[in-house]
């Protein structure tokens, strides 16, 4: 048993648990985006940052991948945490301005506009790679991946063409935290042979 505190509340955890898991077990909310219980955490989006105080030092850690340790003090709602959260949301607003999920989340944290340059106003993907992880770990395939490097990085199937590897199970679609997969999905599984006709409303 490992004993430590979250927001000055004493909690107990077992070896191998993460700070986020322990917090959630005790009903303490930490916002996340790229975390999904079905797959291993990757710490991509950094939204789950919390402040860790240990021996007089303080640092920010990503709670979804930070393992619990004896005697640490975790704070989830300090000004420093709020500050970094808002910065992350502001950056996300610039990188995926087209995502209603992101704007709702940002609004909930008081972020309504961004100071960063918006390159593509329709972009919805934040390239957290959750779709890739779920395809690999849960479905057991690699139909989708994060391709290219640096500023050209994007999510898709090889050569951005429909792939036979994809079995169209829709796991990526369900877990996508920003709703970006809706637009990418048909380029991965291929357009349906007999699509449903949508009536104009």
């Amino acid at each position: 048993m490992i004993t430590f505190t979250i927001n000055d509340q004493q909690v107990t955890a077992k070896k191998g648990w993460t700070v986020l898991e322990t917090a959630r077990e005790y009903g303490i909310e930490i916002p996340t985006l790229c975390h999904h219980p079905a797959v291993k955490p990757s710490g991509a989006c950094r939204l789950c940052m919390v402040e860790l105080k240990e021996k007089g030092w303080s640092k920010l850690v990503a709670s979804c991948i930070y393992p619990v340790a004896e005697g640490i003090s975790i704070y989830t709602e300090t000004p420093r945490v709020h500050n970094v959260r808002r910065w992350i949301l502001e950056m996300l607003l610039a990188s995926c301005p087209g995502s209603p999920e992101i704007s709702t989340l940002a609004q909930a944290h008081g972020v309504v506009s961004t100071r960063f340059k918006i390159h593509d106003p329709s972009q919805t993907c934040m390239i957290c790679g959750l779709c890739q992880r779920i395809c690999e770990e849960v479905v057991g395939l690699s139909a989708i991946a994060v391709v290219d490097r640096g500023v050209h990085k994007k999510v898709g199937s090889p050569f951005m063409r429909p792939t036979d590897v994809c079995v169209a199970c829709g796991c990526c679609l369900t877990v996508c935290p920003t709703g970006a997969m809706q637009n990418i999905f048909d380029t991965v599984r291929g357009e349906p042979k007999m699509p449903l006709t949508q009536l104009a409303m």
Partner: protein
Amino acid sequence: MMTDTKIGVFLCKCGNEIAPLIDLPRLYSTIQPEADYCEILSFPCLQPGLEKIMSAAAANRLNRIIIAGCEGRTMLKKFETALEPVDILKGQIDMVNLHSHVAAVSDKSPLEKAAKAAKLITASIAEMRVLKATEQERARIDGPVVVVGNGISSFPAVQKITEAGIECMLSVPEADPDKIIRNLHLSYPGERTHYDRLKTLIKDTMGSKNLTVFEHSRLTELVGVTGNYTLTFTLQNGQEETVKAGAIIAALDAELSPPGPEFGYDGCSVLIQSEMEEHITRNGTPKGQVVFWISDYEYGTPEHATLSAKSAWTMAMHMKACSPETNVMIFHNEKMAIPLTGAERAVNRKAQIAWIPYDNAVRPSVQDGYVTFCNLRDHVEHELAWDFLVLSPKRGISGEAKTTAKILGLVHRETPFLTGHHAKVRPEMIGREETYLAGSARYPCDLQEALNQGRKAGIRNVEMIEKSQAAQLLVPRIVCVVDPDKCVACGQCQELCDCGGIGIEMLSGGLPRVVDPMLCTGGGTCAAACPYGALVLQNNSTDQKEARIAALSRLMEPDEVVAMACVWGGLPAADNAHRRKMSYDPRTHILGIPCVGQIDPAVMARAFLEGAPGLLLIGCLPEECHHSYGIDHAWNRVNLIKKLFDLCGFDRRRIAIAHADMNKPEEFVKTVDAFNALIAALGPIPKTQANLDNLASIYQLCKYNTRIRTLLSVALRRPWEKTYRGDQRHALEFDRDFTAAIEEEFDFAESALNEPAFYRYA
């Protein structure tokens, strides 16, 4: 290991997603008396929650777990992996999606939502109670591996297998490497540069000590299942030879054939690429003007153009090198991109091989000595002179290769090429990991690619056999099994099954079918179609689904609807409707099922017998069943129920089948809302004695009447669908005959209602 069933239900709070929306304490008090154990957890999916489930399972000796939280499509695997060490296996864990199907659907009160959740969980408990869980089996696949099909990819496959020290058998028409190479251009034209290395590979392979070669033999029969195949070869002298094998690799090459007369094909001056190469081999490089026409666009197969262009170019280069006075040019559709790399383009310029594009809009016509085409630059029809016009070959699988493929059960669809699996399912659902098909019969490819495929097939087989020897090769838990006592060997299941999982074990004596558990994808269309109930989808049987739908239907209010949603279409559409914050009619009670095709007509009838006012089946998109045309078979079954309803005076519209696209949840919402409105307008089926008797007869007929069940399973698909063309009849005629049969049997069923045993088969 058979002990009492002990069911543990774990209700998930899911932070703010479920707890504030559903009255969990109320739900707990409803469920707790029905289950053997019940607990509310904050997050069962996270490590602390998982540990609590495991300790509760150990303390209460639970062997069935129901987690009521979110979607099983993504989460179930985590629970299965975590609970495997405590002997709770796949099939023994079920998930009820409170999150998407109850909490987020509507703005009803937490109390009302708790009532809906309780219904869904009760249904799940009922299913778990009748589950007959099997033990985890391990597959045993030893050598030898048999490589058949005469394709060139046999050799790299054999090489990889013999290198690993596994015994291998190879069936080839010709064992002499020189003769094999001599005929190779008939399948792979323009590959001369690889012949030397290939010859070494063939020689090395043929000399391997683990290899047995059958020369001049033809595969004529295949029986058995993965790990235990018996193959019969017919030798040249007419004798038959039988071999036992653990695994099979089919190395098949596509056949190249000439096009129709509109291209002026005559076999001597207008010929296809493989014939040109034969000409070169026999008579040397021709002099004069040689035009390679990449005519794949005109054949309607533009996807093969690049491949043809590449072989044309290699042949052209060879001709230029052998005889500089030959004038070679490549004549191609402007839509085709020239498949040459930068370096190759430089070589091409030096060799002065012209690539002449023509306008796609004007089809070139062949004349004696000329071919006319429309130039892109000036839109004038030009003429290109030729002494030899070399056309692209038409590619397809036929003859010997097709016969072999049919014996191996690889011909699934009416496409010119072969596919390994029709089924589009998760890899864990198919036990066999190896690719057993290599070569250009899969899809047109060049020699390099064919050899690579062979190599890959070899490696995969070796891996599989090594895994099996280490006792790590698991048989999927949800597969069909045949009860040989009930099977009358009608062969319907074999006809329906597209995964090739159903076969016969021996050729003599009675012929009950067997299922190859390593090939079965667990679609269950065959099980639901079996007229005699001899096929059972283990760990996910019809009995289970019947129990589940019965429990749910008993709890239905007069205006509530049971919806069975397929995990590849309806269910993800429902989950995504929640993700996109849509709401739909909360009277819909969704049961997730792996495929609509596995829903037996008896399950549908049972829902109405137990009091459901309406049943909606939501499958995947048309033509996109991930198993074997499940939705089309379900269509016939729904049709049966509708006809029976007509006979009893119930409204036909109470049962319906729908399609859903997971990426269009808004359409899913329309589907369920419209059906709910309809059922609400119709009201329940009045519970008079006459109606109840009718419903009971319908159920009896659907479950036990072998005549009707046989008619259903031979109906295969809808009249207008073409995949089983030979079996389709005049739509109206068929329907009238079917109705007449149903009427006859229904009268019979009504009179025999009091003696259901009469209907039961032995």
